[in-house]
């Protein structure tokens, strides 16, 4: 297994894990378990799309963690973040975080792989081990649920995302 080859994906794995489980430490636990499992299982990887393979390893670790209740099924995003530059941004982000927490773990995985990691439906299908049709239906349900949540905030007047 090649250190440098995997290392370039650690930032991606961390970003995805943070969005998936919310809490910074729980997210890094997930990444660490994923990297350790990847080392043990590396003989199963066929040269090809290493990123998709690492995400499939992370998916398996995540599912096991959910089963053993090491992480709660709904994400709790409560950390402070820097970089809020425009007035609308903080409320948008808070809505986003609450909305993500409302999704099922399965919906969150698909949504984040597509919208945050820019993976194709095919890559997501391989990473999660489910048919493409399932990926697409989970994605559309996730988007709809999230959008409904974000639209439903009574105090909000402007839904446009300010860059």
């Amino acid at each position, binding site marked *: 297994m*090649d250190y*440098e*080859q995997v290392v370039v*994906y650690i930032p991606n794995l961390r970003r995805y894990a943070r*969005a998936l489980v919310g809490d910074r430490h729980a997210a890094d636990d997930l990444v660490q378990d994923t*990297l350790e499992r990847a080392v043990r299982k590396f003989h199963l990887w066929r040269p090809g799309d290493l990123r998709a393979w690492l995400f499939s390893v992370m998916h398996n670790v995540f599912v096991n963690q959910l089963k053993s209740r090491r992480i709660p099924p709904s994400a709790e995003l409560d950390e402070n973040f820097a970089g809020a530059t425009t007035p609308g941004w903080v409320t*948008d982000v808070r809505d986003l975080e609450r909305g993500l927490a409302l999704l099922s773990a399965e919906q969150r995985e698909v949504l984040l792989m597509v919208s945050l990691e820019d993976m194709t439906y095919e890559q997501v299908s391989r990473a999660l081990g489910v048919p493409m049709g399932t990926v697409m239906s989970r994605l559309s349900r996730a988007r709809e649920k999230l959008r409904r949540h974000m639209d439903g905030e009574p105090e909000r007047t402007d839904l446009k995302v300010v860059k």
Partner: protein
Amino acid sequence: MKPDDDLGRLLHDRFDPVLVEPIPARLQMRRPAWIGHARAAAVLAAGIAIGLALPFTWRGAPQTGPVASAGAPALPVRAARAHVVYAVEVRHPVEVDASQQEHLVAWLSKRLGTKLKAPALTAEGFELLGGRLLPGPEGPVAQFMYQEGAGRRLTLYVSSRAKGEGQTAFRFAQEGAVSVFYWIDGNWGYALSGEIDRATLSRISTSVYRQLNP
């Protein structure tokens, strides 16, 4: 703009900062153990070991390039792999785009602890797209990305010199489809990568070198 794009942008705004956070020590894989595992796995599956070894083998410059003593791949290998990973990104090829060039160069300079420069390659037909910070065996690495029109991309990879890597003049390496010109100057290694013919890359490398050493 479609609502789906808004959602994606919001997700990126919120979570992209994680990409540039320093990687906690517990996730910085202990390289010797890692490689030990890898070797063990490779030996266990001898057939696969051949498959694994192939992409990492240096075609064209067998064992002549500098090899870092700690077992990390040599500069041109790392540069070519980083090129492959990011040059294909459609929506997020860079972390900081060229519209904030001054900020980009200042940020990367600060993180690498040296004064960096983003060479201008306009005369060669390439515009700066931006850059990103990557982890490397000897600390952070900077990657500048350039694009020719809407087409080919080049990356300039700047990394501190690994232990065991001596100074080198221009060298050429080929990693799969990616051509790399690299050189080590003082404590810094530079590698220009692209899926581009050797002569063109050589000409551009010369321009980069001249701009970095006026």
